[in-house]
């Protein structure tokens, strides 16, 4: 198991290398450059040349890339052109914000998705099943940014329950409750869509398991319905759900871009979009590498969790 995990982690390195090379190549190939973006109207060739010298952008491209890579190995992500600060500082702040948002959305998604799925399966063909199935379908079909805007109109503007945008530092003077206050709408909007998938999958997986002989055995043994459903059936049903949760976390991180934009949440998705616009190569590189690393890590985590839950996978 440990060897398996280690091997998977080592495999991440070439992936990250490729991703960073690809990001660098694309940023270089698209027209426009950082100096031009910074100078705006005043991008005369003279001004561009002076600025490129100051930013060390006048060196050959391979040298720029290799320098970046070398610095990266020592933990130095470079300095952002457009923000005038170390890339790592910006990444840390932004990624923390995205993780908070995606993490909260993940919790909501699991609670809603698993609960709805289990109830729908247990009450198959009854009204609860219909409500949750239709609800999941609606959730699946609604784009999250649209839901976000509806949330703002209803809960912020009409009812005034939640702020429309922004985020406060969890450990700042305003305290963690204030962060939660700002987090409710974006996290819920992000989670609802993803919950639909989990609910449908949990329902079908539970239905399959509930029909199996061992469940009937457990029931005839005299175990309570609650124990049969949660301990015997759910434990086995969840094995098929876990890898999809891994994928959904990717969806939450990616889908966060829209939500971050609508709610003005200072996450990494929005940072990347802005950085591409300003041709901030080092910031894009750093962000892409970090996001790719997270994806790989999450998939690995999902696989490991599945292996833990299902001994058959571990033995192979």
């Amino acid at each position, binding site marked *: 198991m440990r060897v398996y995990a280690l091997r998977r982690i080592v495999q991440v390195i070439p992936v990250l290398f490729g991703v960073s090379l690809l990001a660098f190549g694309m940023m270089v190939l698209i027209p426009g450059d950082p100096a031009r*973006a910074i100078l705006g109207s005043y991008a005369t060739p003279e001004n561009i040349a002076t600025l490129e010298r100051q930013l060390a952008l006048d060196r050959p491209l391979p040298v720029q890339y290799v320098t970046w890579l070398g610095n990266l190995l020592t933990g130095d992500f470079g300095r952002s052109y457009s923000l*005038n600060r170390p890339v790592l500082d910006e990444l840390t702040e932004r990624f923390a914000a995205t993780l908070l948002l995606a993490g909260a959305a993940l919790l909501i998604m699991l609670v809603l998705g698993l609960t709805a799925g289990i109830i729908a399966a247990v009450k198959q063909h009854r009204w609860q099943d219909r409500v949750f199935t239709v609800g999941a379908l609606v959730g699946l079909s609604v784009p999250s940014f649209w839901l976000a805007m509806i949330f703002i109109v209803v809960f912020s503007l009409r009812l005034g329950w939640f702020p429309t945008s922004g985020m406060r530092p969890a450990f700042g003077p305003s305290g963690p409750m204030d962060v939660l206050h700002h987090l409710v709408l974006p996290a819920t909007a992000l989670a609802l869509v993803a919950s639909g998938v989990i609910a449908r999958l949990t329902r079908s997986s539970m239905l399959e398991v509930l029909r199996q002989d061992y469940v009937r055995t457990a029931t005839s043994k005299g175990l309570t319905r609650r*124990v049969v459903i949660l301990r015997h059936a759910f434990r086995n049903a969840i094995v098929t759900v876990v890898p999809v949760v891994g994928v959904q976390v990717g969806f939450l991180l990616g889908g966060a871009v829209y939500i971050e934009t609508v709610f003005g949440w200072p996450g990494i998705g929005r940072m990347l979009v802005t950085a591409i616009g300003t041709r901030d190569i080092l910031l894009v590189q750093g962000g892409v590498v970090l996001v790719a690393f997270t994806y790989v890590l999450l998939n690995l985590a999902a696989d490991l969790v599945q292996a833990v*839950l299902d001994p058959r996978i571990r033995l192979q």
Partner: protein
Amino acid sequence: MTTQMQRWTSGPGRRLRTVMASLLAVSLVLAACGGDAADPETPDDPDAADDPGAAGDADLGDPLVVGQVAEPASLDPHQVTAVNDFRININLYDGLVRYEDDSLGVEPALATDWEISDDGLLYTFALRDDVSFHDGSPFDAEAVKFNFDRMLDEDHPDHDTGPFPLANQFFGQVAEVRAVEDHVVEFELSQPFAPFLSNLAYPTGLLISPAAVEEHGEDVGRNPSGTGPYVFVEWLGNERVTLERNPDYWDGPPGVSGVVFRPITESQTRVTELLSGGVDLIVEVPPDDVAPLRDDSDLTVQEQAGPHVWFLILNLAEAPFDDVRMRQALNYAIDKQSLVDDVLQGTASVAAGPIAEAFGWAYNPDLEPYPYDPERARELIEEAGYGDGVDVTFFVTEGGSGMLDPVPMGEAIQADLREVGIDAAIETYEWNSFLDEVNAGIEGKADMAQMAWMTADPDTLPYLTLRSNAWPEDGGFNSGYYANPEVDALLEAAQVETDQDERARRYHEMQEIVVEDAPWVFVASWKQNAAMSADIQGFEVHPSFLLRLHDVSRS
């Protein structure tokens, strides 16, 4: 999450319940938090009310919360290039001179008086002697010298705390700065350069504390210290920049306890934040929202035409626009009034020529915009020999600094041209790619291209875009290859002449010639707008598009 799921293996039933319970607890906390906010009594500014860092004198109330269009890049005045950064810096720092209240003319600020030598090469400034930087260090001639040497002299020990992208643009003519006396400073220019004085009022000319630069090095942009009406308190990345009032400000302390700048990039989100009371003031209200906000009695909306021109570059190197009749026809064929009223919802005014009306003295008040006259346009097109119709390529950008609503504007222009038999094929580019294509010259690629400029002085735009020495291969932005020796001579002369009346006369003449030659289609000038709660007093949108909050108070 991973560890929680792994723990299920040891005792699934109990563990699962624990996990479920903790999940439920979290969702209850979330719900409770929602209930918390449902309290009917919400202060009009919940975002700032609970922030002790921003609280100043109690009787001045909450700090003013401003919805900015983006996160600032830096608060070092010499490093930044975006108006979004300028809007904060102008409240933290002062320059030697500043813009007058309602125009782009200059008046004394940290310099009380100045003299210009007859040859236009030597500027001598007398400085205030009662001013200190926020960090306590004195403001004097040495501090001024330090500021310009740091930007311009590559051998200065603090030159590596840059980059200084606009230094060369605005102060490239400065040969030497001398601290003559404690409070007298002298600038020697390498050649006469009339815009120099107004460039000192531009935000690149704001003055930072040398002690702060020496202490913080390249991170001084996050630890700024100036002499301005507000003092820096903190900068929370992507969330807020907080300033508090400077009680010792030389021009009188401000009337609010402080200012909080929040970056809200999505324009619609800025509007909803204003409506819900999360911010007090927003800038760059999107055209479609101006009218509804104007009708809201809790809010006021202000507009002010700025130093901005939106135009179409025409390709004079190739047919059909090598013919002046075709270029004039285009100016007649496009309904500019409808563009500013319908597409831009009144957030711009019709432009008559290449210099924006906001420049006052340099603008030729006798100019009339080309009227909308498709009949006249058709006659000219007939005369030019294109009566049977002509196909042209039209470069349009998806967005970009000062480009307003480029795609709908491009489509409206396309429709107007179709009316007079010109079939314009639109090619759309992302902003940076667009600049790359257009700035390199449009010959062989397009017949017309959108463009917009916003400048600090009336000199820069025509100098860089209309002279025959400013074609792309010469490093200028005359991307349509306009050339008229008369215009060249007038522009060169206006640039070095120091007498403002003489400068004005040359610019007035230049505008008449250029409007007649029609190397562009002159379309619109953007109106800067701001919307704010009705209790905000003393705020005026300035033609510079800066955000001067010194005189703001709450009623």
